[in-house]
């Protein structure tokens, strides 16, 4: 008998069900329907914006990330998510820059996958908000025609934004904040509203996020605690003064809340590792969203709510360490 060579490795000797790339590419897959919905509502321009952001993110990862790190799928997620939180008709070069900043300053500068403190896509968006405040608040009316591209989309860097020649509309949150005009709830749910590309169809996002939750690729406690927190707090405010504060359902389905709760706050790297911590984290995000929307200067607050809570994650982890088996009861008589 020839001597076969055997593997000698530490236990356990069986492989578990999921790998990090499996999780990441499943997230990418679950974003596809949302991207298609964005394209349905905003035309081919949606794909171009998302594509530019993703190209920026992936190119940066490929150039400056660790060797082979493109294959883990995390850069693709960052790019797609960034694209989804940009307005339709956003200049493509800006979207590209956003993707670059997301990966370079949101992730690589901290040491790559797993090391970053803030959600890279939201960091990129925060950068764009600071750098291009006008472009990022120009909202195109859904259904402007499938193939029409707003002129400012293809504008050349630093040459001015071009003429804004599209029919713009305010987002439901903007309408409420500045003009106290409500939006039909059903339109909010299916997405027939103005807003960022991925902010439109709440129901679709629930389905896609729910798939990930069922497969344990995201911690369901985070979106659920965000929803509870938002619903309770905004419900209280609504009871106090219904003319000033919108209903909880409006709060849940408007703006980036659904996308943020299911896909941004649940980013494993930047959310707590403990389940108890996830409840705390979600409750904090929800509270901040309500506070910013109700009393802040901006109509929308999901981005800052999540970024602020990201910063607290190390503390939340420390506060919510599991109680080790054998230390939960009083000391045994020895």
């Amino acid at each position: 008998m020839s001597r076969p060579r055997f593997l000698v490795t530490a236990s356990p000797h069986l492989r578990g069900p999921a790998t990090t790339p499996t999780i990441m590419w499943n997230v990418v897959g679950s974003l596809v329907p949302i991207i298609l919905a964005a394209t349905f509502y905003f035309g081919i321009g949606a794909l171009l914006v998302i594509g530019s952001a993703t190209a920026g993110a992936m190119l940066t990862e490929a150039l400056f990330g660790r060797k082979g790190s493109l294959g883990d799928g995390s850069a693709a997620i960052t790019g797609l998510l960034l694209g989804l939180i940009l307005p339709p008709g956003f200049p493509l070069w800006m979207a590209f820059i956003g993707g670059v900043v997301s990966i370079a300053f949101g992730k690589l500068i901290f040491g790559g996958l797993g090391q970053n403190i803030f959600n890279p896509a939201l960091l990129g968006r925060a950068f764009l908000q600071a750098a291009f405040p006008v472009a990022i608040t120009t909202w195109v009316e859904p259904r402007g025609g499938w193939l029409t591209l707003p002129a400012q989309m293809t504008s050349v860097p630093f040459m001015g934004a071009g003429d804004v020649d599209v029919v713009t509309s305010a987002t439901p949150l903007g309408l409420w904040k500045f003009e106290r005009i409500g939006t039909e709830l059903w339109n909010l749910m299916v997405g027939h509203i103005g807003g960022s590309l991925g902010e439109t169809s709440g129901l679709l996002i629930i389905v896609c996020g729910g798939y990930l939750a069922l497969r344990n690729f995201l911690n369901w406690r985070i979106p659920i605690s965000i929803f509870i927190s938002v619903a309770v707090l905004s419900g209280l405010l609504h009871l106090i003064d219904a003319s000033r504060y919108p209903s909880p359902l409006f709060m849940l389905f408007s703006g980036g809340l659904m996308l943020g709760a299911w896909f941004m706050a649940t980013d494993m790297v930047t959310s707590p590792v403990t389940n108890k911590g996830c409840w705390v984290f979600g409750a904090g995000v929800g509270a901040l969203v309500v506070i910013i929307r109700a009393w802040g200067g901006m109509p929308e607050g999901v981005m800052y709510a999540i970024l602020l809570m990201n910063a607290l994650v190390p503390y939340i982890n420390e506060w919510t360490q599991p109680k080790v088996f054998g230390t939960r009861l009083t000391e045994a008589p020895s």
Partner: protein
Amino acid sequence: MPYKRTFRHGVHPPELKELTEKVKIRRLPFPDEVVLPLSQHTGKPAKPLVQAGDRVERADKLAEADGFISAPVHASASGTITAIDLWPHPDGSYKPAIRIAVERYSPQAARPRIIPRWEGLTPPQIVQAVQDGGVVGLGGAAFPTHVKLAPSKDVSIDTIVINGCECEPYLTTDHHIMAEYPERVHLGIRIMARALGVDRVMIGIEKNKPDAIEAIRATLPADLNVTVHPLTVKYPQGAEKMLIEALLKREVPSGKLPLHVGVVVQNVGSCAAIAEIFETGLPLIERIVTVTGRGVAEPANLIVPVGTKVRDLIDACGGLTEDAHEVVFGGPMMGAPQANLDVPVLKGTTGVIVLSEAETRRKESFACIRCGHCLDACPVFLNPQLLGQMALAGRYLETEDHHIWDCMLCGCCSYVCPSNIPLSQLFQVTRTAIRRLKTEAAA
């Protein structure tokens, strides 16, 4: 009963028991040589009583226990001792072992001996007989069984828990002991109950062994308070602390033993081995081993003489297949990998598993993405993510503040880690490093 008997956390690896679940136990013919390491148990190695060239009969004592936490070693076959020398040990090192060239045409009969009647023995006499029989925990840890039957006076034991969980994938050893020798298990329980002076016995069996549950239930003694508890199938249900939590809702304090909560846990195989001492008079010289995995042609449950080489076991099961990639002693979650097919089966070897390449650990690892899956898996509620990062950074002593010594090395965290970070291996390394750092500091 709506209440589910189990512990919290844990994992659900594929059970993979179907390969040998329905295969009846059969006896392996005596091999040409048996190799009996002096260290087959937790505690001090046995001291040899024989020399090279001696002729020994089956069941003769070859080495005696060195102190109380030790166990003797007996000849598992008749023949001539060829050497007492270093030999590959399943733990990966070379250890002193007694080699016996087995006599080919021997009837393999033991010398006539007096079989003690357990009913007439006092508890200390039973403990002595169990130690003389060389019985150790047959569930894998190989802790000398008699030690657990003689707890110190300052603890009071009220319950004996019999471990028939066999939560490791692939293994069907305990399953077949329960299904095929239930009376022997019950006799062992009776003797232990007498030794400990305890009348409450709980047998925990995972629900995936209905025939074992049925066989044990059908032979329950009428005069003893023995109960059978089917348990949820989950790894590591067979870990002592988890089993006690599932059956009794008692939590063994950190750093303490089951006897601190009034419980003694014994494996079903150990029960049968104790019974054998008082039935046939034979010490622990053979055991039942599951030889299985996709790398073995004909998986089987075998009765083998202790000291039989793995090579002989695999040959008896039709040899290796093309897929054979990794040979593991014990279960695939906690077992020890083998590089050499000359290693012998020990008293505590529950199974020999030959895994195929497709099911073994992945080669590539990724960065930790802080998914928290390891925290959800850890049955003792550690934070493997944090401990792993500390270990990788070489911050070994800090891990003590985070209960590194409470880790059972069950492997749940490594199993679920999507980034394939070898967490339980890191913890093993960390503990070794801490011990070294402390001895260096003391010196």
